[in-house]
């Protein structure tokens, strides 16, 4: 692993109802395309993209999960080791917004407590069909202390920004963690407080 050419490795997991555009967001970011008529995701898909941020190579492992209930137990197993979660809903679908608390409960239950969560409202190209007002989503995100961003996978709006902002935030936290850990020498067994972030940063 240390042979590989990167400074940071982060795991990002996309979650949210089926059909909100998770797969499209990932494809747009990793392959630069908007896939026409691909079927619903089965289980989880895995993609990698390495980006450079302020001269540092950051490898992003992106896990795209299926939204349907029957895949829930598969996707849940990825929460724990995730550095960041992208919780996605569709701004033209009130239902996908109303399911967010349920997703937050999943996060609460399975994710590690250092995980960075960002709420994403996708499909802003369909402005005329909008059902969830921006202000409402922003308020919700703030109440849950999440970041918030609106995107369009189709028009490639904010997609790059979404992943790059996330990478920046993760680097910031990783650096912070390293400082903290140096202050108080970490003890083994306190595994839960040792940051996953610092574990995967390489020097």
């Amino acid at each position: 692993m240390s042979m590989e050419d990167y400074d940071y490795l982060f795991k990002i997991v996309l979650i949210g109802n089926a059909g909100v555009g998770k797969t499209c967001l990932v494809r747009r970011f990793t392959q630069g395309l908007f896939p026409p008529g691909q079927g619903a995701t089965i289980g989880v898909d895995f993609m990698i993209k390495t980006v450079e941020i302020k001269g540092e190579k950051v490898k992003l492992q992106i896990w795209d999960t299926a939204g349907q209930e029957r895949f829930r137990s598969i996707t849940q197993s990825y929460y724990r080791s995730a550095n960041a979660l992208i919780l996605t809903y569709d701004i033209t679908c009130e239902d996908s917004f109303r399911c967010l608390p349920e997703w937050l409960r999943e996060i609460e239950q399975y994710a590690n407590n250092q995980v960075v969560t960002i709420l994403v409202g996708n499909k802003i190209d369909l402005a005329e069909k909008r059902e969830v007002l921006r202000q409402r989503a922003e308020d919700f995100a703030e109440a849950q202390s999440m970041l918030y961003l609106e995107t369009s996978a189709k028009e490639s709006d904010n997609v790059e920004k979404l992943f790059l902002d996330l990478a920046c935030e993760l680097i910031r936290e990783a650096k912070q963690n390293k400082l903290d850990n140096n202050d108080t020498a970490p003890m083994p067994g306190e595994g839960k407080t040792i940051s996953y972030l610092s574990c995967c940063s390489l020097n």
Partner: protein
Amino acid sequence: MSAPILQLSTDLYSLDPSALTLTLTNNSCYFLEVVKRWKLIICFVVCSLQKEVEAELDRLVGQEGTIHTKMLALQRMGPNLQLIGGDASQLSGMITFTCSLAENVSRKVRQLDLAKTRLYNVIQRADDILDLKFCTDGVQTALRNEDYEQAAAHIHRYLSLDQSVIELSRQGEESSAVDASLVMLQEAEQKLKVIVAEKLDEAVAAVDLAQVERFFKIFPLLGLHQQGLARFGQYLCSQLASKAEENLLLATGGDLGEKRALLIFADTLTLLLEGIARVVETHQPIVETYYGPGHLYTLITHLQQECDKQAQKIVDKFIQQRGYHNKFQIVQSSMMKSVPGERIEPRYVCVELDPVLTEVTLMNARAELYLRFLRRRMMADFEVGDAQSITQEHQQNVEKLLKHCLLSRTMQELIGYYIPMEEYYMRESVNKAVAMDTYEKGQLTSSMVDDCFYIVKKCISRALSSSSIDCLCAMINHANSVLESDFREVLYNKVRQGFPATTLQDIQRGVSSAVSLMQSSLQQGKFNTLGIESAEHAKAAFLNDCSKLFSQGGGSGDQAKIESCLSDLVNTSTKFKDLLQEGLTELNTTAIKPQVKPWISSFLAISHNIEEEEFNDYEANDPWVQQLIVNLEQLMAEFKAALSPVIYDTLTSLMTSLISIEMEKTVLKCSFSRLGGLQFDKELRSLVAYLTTVTTWTIRDKFARLTQMATILNLERVTEILDYWGPNSGPLTWRLTPAEVRQVLALRIDFRSEDIKRLRL
């Protein structure tokens, strides 16, 4: 210029094939004669036209030569320019005329050519119409004789005729006659379609495979591919259904052997899927031969509907009889932390879960195998048609059929329940192994670690046997979680609690259990690589299996998934190694150090301010080092027996460091005579010689400072140090600072402090 010939060709050009057609239907022999003659005429016309044009061109070219000479003459004639002008314009006119003449001729030739092509079409159509008559007659006879194959062949010929010919035929004078025969044909076609459908239905009802196949082959001749495949599919489905129902009845009713009973639903599903695979295999040739390539997909679509239905029945029975959902609920509520009220003893839950989990993974593996088989067959069938033309659409249809069929969804659901149950099984079994782990006196190893890793390995293997990559990855993730957080914590706490350091006995106990924990942790390291290796094998096998199917890049995606999940497991094993290192350091300081330290400080009690007599005494009766070696030997023997070689080596390394540091401290508290220094040198050599035999590490380096101290304590005079110092040090690298050298020199009671101070180091 012969006008009549050109005229003739123009007539020919305006010839209307439909006009000909009219005559044709009446008297075909006569017509063929006419056609032959026309052909001759056309050839003749074309030839003579060509000759004429050539002659004309030759003539003109000849004229051109003359004109050219004339022009030269004219040029010479200078003053007669006006004349030349007239001649020139005349010439130009003539050339233009020639040109248009040539063009005219060539256009005529083209027209002739077109006429010829049309004539050939006419002949072709005449043939068709003759066939039409032949079909009309033939189909009647064949129907009368119940020769349906022959009748269908006639209809097939009729259907492949050019519809426009038929339309044209109906517009002519003899339209009524043609219409009549057409009506007859169409009637025959309808009649045949009905008969064949009826016959096929009859054969299906009678379960007469020979007849079913006979009429199945006739459908494509009548252009009824879809209908034929649907009816045939229906027949095959009813066969499958009755067999499946029989099997399910056997499975749920009869008394089965103990062993078979545990996997009866997986077995029943296997029978169903194998049955369908066999049907596909058996009938694929007949479909390909009579329906052409690319139609297997349609047949499988029909079969899959029955498969879905029957598989669902089996799974429903499985869920019901095994209490699958019920078990899931128990697990679910058990995993929720604080559930009030009665909690079912996990041990019983686990015992019941074990066989069901195995059965589910087997069911999924069978389904995956079956779906892979179908995919392979369908793609091969498309490829037979045209390897290049396997379109995106074909691929997508196949994927859609396989990934979104009810069988797939049902299996996904089963696996969805399986994962939390397997996770629960793993966690609870690990908990149990930890709880049951009690230290027994005299026992060096604990079963707990081995048990835990056995369980984790078992669960991952079971997930692997499901053939579902997502399922495997999910279980690797859970295993990682159990090992990294829960289990590591338990180990860590044990290490911590293992060293109360009150009495030697306690320490010994702590050491022993810690030793075994450490040892097993290292074995865990081995397990990890083992696990990875076996997963690598499985992965290789998987990918081999799937390589053809995932040729679009899905394969590499799956590989990346497994690799990523496994690398997390590798990270965990690194953390275990860190824990081991820490534990060993702890072991050294809390268990070894308290014992070794007094053995070394007993050195203080042995005077090294000695004369000849005592030196000889020591020679005969070793006062210290032999006892130290014996003690160390005993201590290390215990470790050596209990520890794996790698851990033992790490521990001895830590111990030798400890010894050298303690020795150094002790020596600096002593005073030495010349012979005392020699005595110390001898003692140190014995100790180093012994330690060299018990470890593979190089001891000399760790004892370099002590060895140098011994050298100093052995000097004759203070200034002798200069023979070894600075430029005279040769290969020796001093590990002692000048201050330390002075400090050691001062230990010699016979060295004067002024001499030591005066040294220039």
